[in-house]
């Protein structure tokens, strides 16, 4: 218990993070341990290479995209607070916890979750998934197993399905509509260990 509180004190703005992200102190603590584990050279900042050192992540077909989702554009490093903030997207939605008006949309709302997924496609951040972007993701996920023609027709089909305004790309609204039937909260939540 004592060690807990003391390490809790080591974490910068722990209280604020708890408030902001909705993680419990135990969660934060655990994540902090993990953060330190990943942060091999003890700078208090994670670099993309640190993420790449996670072996399983390196094998994830869209692992690099996931990694880059943690870094806001132009930034090379990630401090703990932002780390936790990104992870907060994956907290299961809490039904009983009423939020005060200060934070109209917590990170773990299904909208934010969707946004996270959307941004994984939308690499150039123009608010649209273009055909090329979709193709990239598909290629990453289907690997060498499928021919380019098939990939293209799949992408074509996917865009046709979702594209309501005929601009040959999927906007976030369209993205959301196409996933209407999916339980986003269910799909995009992790039960964080504490």
């Amino acid at each position, binding site marked *: 218990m004592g060690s807990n509180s003391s390490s809790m004190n080591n974490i910068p703005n722990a209280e604020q993070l708890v408030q902001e992200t909705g993680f419990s102190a135990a969660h934060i603590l655990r*994540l902090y341990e*993990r953060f330190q*584990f*990943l942060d091999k050279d003890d700078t208090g900042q994670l670099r993309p290479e640190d*993420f790449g050192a*996670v072996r*399983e*992540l390196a094998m*994830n*077909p*869209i*692992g690099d995209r*996931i990694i880059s989702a943690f870094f806001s554009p132009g930034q090379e490093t990630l401090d703990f607070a932002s780390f936790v903030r990104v*992870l907060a997207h*994956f907290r*299961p939605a809490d039904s009983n916890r009423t939020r005060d008006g200060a934070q109209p949309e917590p990170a773990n709302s299904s909208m934010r979750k969707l946004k*996270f*997924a959307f941004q*994984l*496609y939308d690499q150039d951040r123009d608010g649209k998934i273009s055909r090329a972007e*979709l193709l990239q*993701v*598909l290629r990453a*996920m*289907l*690997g*060498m*197993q*499928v*021919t380019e*023609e*098939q990939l293209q*027709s*799949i992408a*074509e*089909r*996917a865009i*046709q*399905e*979702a594209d309501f305004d005929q601009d040959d790309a*999927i906007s976030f609204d369209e*993205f959301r509509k*196409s*996933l209407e*039937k*999916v339980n*986003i909260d*269910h*799909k*995009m*939540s*992790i*039960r*964080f*260990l504490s």
Partner: protein
Amino acid sequence: MGTSVLYEVKTERGVFCMLLLLYLCCSGGKCELQESQPAQPSNRPTVKPFNNEPQAFPEEERASLPVFTMDYPRIQVPFEFTLWILLASFAKIGFHIYHKITIWIPESCLLIVIGLIVGGIMHTVKEEPPTALSSNAFFLYMLPPIVLDSGYFMPTRPFFENCGTVLWYAVVGTLWNSIGIGLSLFAICQFEVFGLQDINLAENLLFAAIISAVDPVAALNVFEDMGVNEQIYIVIFGEGLFNDAVTVALYSMFSFLADMPVVESTDVFLGVARFFVVAFGGVFFGLVFGFVAAFTTRFTHNVRQIEPLFIFMYSYLAYLVAECFAISSVLAIITCAITMKYYVEENVSQRSCTTIRHVVKMLATVSETLIFFFLGVITVTVEHEWNWAYILFTLVFAFFWRIIGILVLTQIINPFRTIQFKYKDQFGLAYGGLRGAICFALAFTLPDSINRKDLFVTGSIAIIICTVFIQGISIRPIVEYMNIRKTNKDKQTINVEVHTRVMEHIICGVEDLCGQWSHYYWKDKFKKFNDRVLRRILVRDHRAESSIVSLYKKLELQNAIDLLDTPIGDLSAAPSIISLQDEKKEASRPKKKFMAAEVRNMHDILSKNMYKIRQKTMAYTNKYNLPDESRTREILIRRHASIRRTVRAGSFRDPPERNIPRSQKYYSLQPGGDLEAAFALRRRSHGSGSGDVDHLSAHVQFAGASARSSSRSLVPMRRLNTIEEIKNPAEQPAVSVHPPPRSNGEDALNKTGPGSLGGSSLRGRRGPVPAPRRSSSDWVEEDANDSEDTGERVDPPQLPPPRGWVPENQDPGENGAGNALIRQSPHRSMRF
């Protein structure tokens, strides 16, 4: 309905036949049997002394040589038993003739009804109920197959992922139910009005333990049909499985307590301790025997005929030994089955594997059928003690405690679950709690020392019939009405499929990033241990393979077998015609518009080829049928179809040279040198069956690339050309891309093929030879032909051979033919 009536007539006739037999030949025999049975043991010691000194004994026998004798008593028990089984089996045939009955009314209901009818008949003719259902017979012969079946076919993966929840419901839920019901009934017994004061607490608890055994077959069937989500399914399944164990443990404990004149507090603690001993002891024995069984099958490759036997003997042994030490034999056999299944199925040949599965299912079905059937019979024929209060309160409490139990337990377990149970799910769980065979059998085998045994039997029967009939029949409409969360089976859009997969990858990646694997962590640990240690010891060919590869192998294999099992006739000519029409249709399609088929095709491509994340696979089992292979087959067939479409249809057309690598990608065997090695191994061991994995992969490839499946899949158009080529090889030696040099045996076969049908089928089977292939597929082709050869020659009566499966222990003559084919292949593989 007409059929059911007809069928009832049938069974009645069966019964009459049986009764007639009974009456004709053994009305006196019965008494003889009773006399002779006790006499038998005493006979032996007396006979032995006689052996030394000659006696007048034999002379009497030889008084006159009978021309015709009948010794019914001698065969009476097995004979009647056989008749009972037959009767029950006829019943099953009966209600599967009219299939819709079993959709709306659970099979157990029907069996009970039949049993009631038969029992009624027996009652009117004053026939004794079957003697087969004694305590020993039930525990030693009828229960093991049922639990072996559940254990063997348990969907391991979802189970272990929901392990905690399952055990929670099974153990705590059962304890909760039995103690709750027991105490409430005991409270009821205190009222003098009901005249039940003589039932003490231990007896009440015993009774409660009996009736808290849930048998969710009916619920499972309904849930499975409706595609209720995996979580609920596995929880109900596991609960049914493990609460048998708990119930039996409680049963033995309480029946022991009930026998004791005074129960002291230490006894209670001892009872609790005993409970744990019983449970963990069972698991221990199960593990031991499971591993021993797995280890044994490592060496059975030369005695394939008796391979399946080991599975049954070891699991039965586990059961018996556990029973011997009075620890949970149910747990022992379940653990044994779960433990060995994985290793055994890798060690034994595919045929043995199929045999094992069939026999396990068969035995389980028979004994369950019999139990329900007997339930009906017993209900009518046995003396009942009917106490309105007791039985009504039993029903009420059973429902009440079940519902409360589920609600409370779910509240406790929910915070620990990633996916929580909603109220609807909880209702499904609670309502699925039918009582079944185990409950009845336990009640019926209650010791006679319990003074209200009849009441308990009546109560159990009442609750079984109530739950099975009321809940069993109503559960389908209710579940449908409530629309309990289902797995998303409706047609998804490509978007959904892609995006959900992306999301799954994200989750997976983030979990890795956070360094937490939830239960995957332990799974990984175990997998490593398994690969490093266990597999080395237990599996003959212990190369670890990824689960995806093994899944593919399994699917391909299954498909190969299925395709080979189907009669030749309908596969020979028809597919090519169909595919021709298909071709035309698809060619005439406009390109840009995506047809439904193409979308499906995309779905297929997506779902088959997208990198698998660590995702749960559905592994439903149906208690009455073998695990659903139709689904996997459908996946395969669709995949073949999709490949075919890919090869042809406009937007999906590939340059032909790309076909091969892409279809090759499905093959689980690594291309290149590895294959050569495999081939060498196979050649060496051909016929001995020791290169089983090579067989496997060979057939996997075979399934994927050639044989009849290929008539639907790879290159049907080209095959038509091949036929031409084959017919006049002299004309076009150069045109044919690669008409393979064919072995004599095969040619002969082709010529002497039985009529047009055989001929075309053979041609149809020639498969994708003409395409430029790498050595691997060529070799497969070889294997296909080879096996076809043997398959062609094997006598039809040899029933089970999934054709195309190289018989492992063939006589050398067959091998000779096979080798002739094989000898060709190194050349061929070199040629390409």
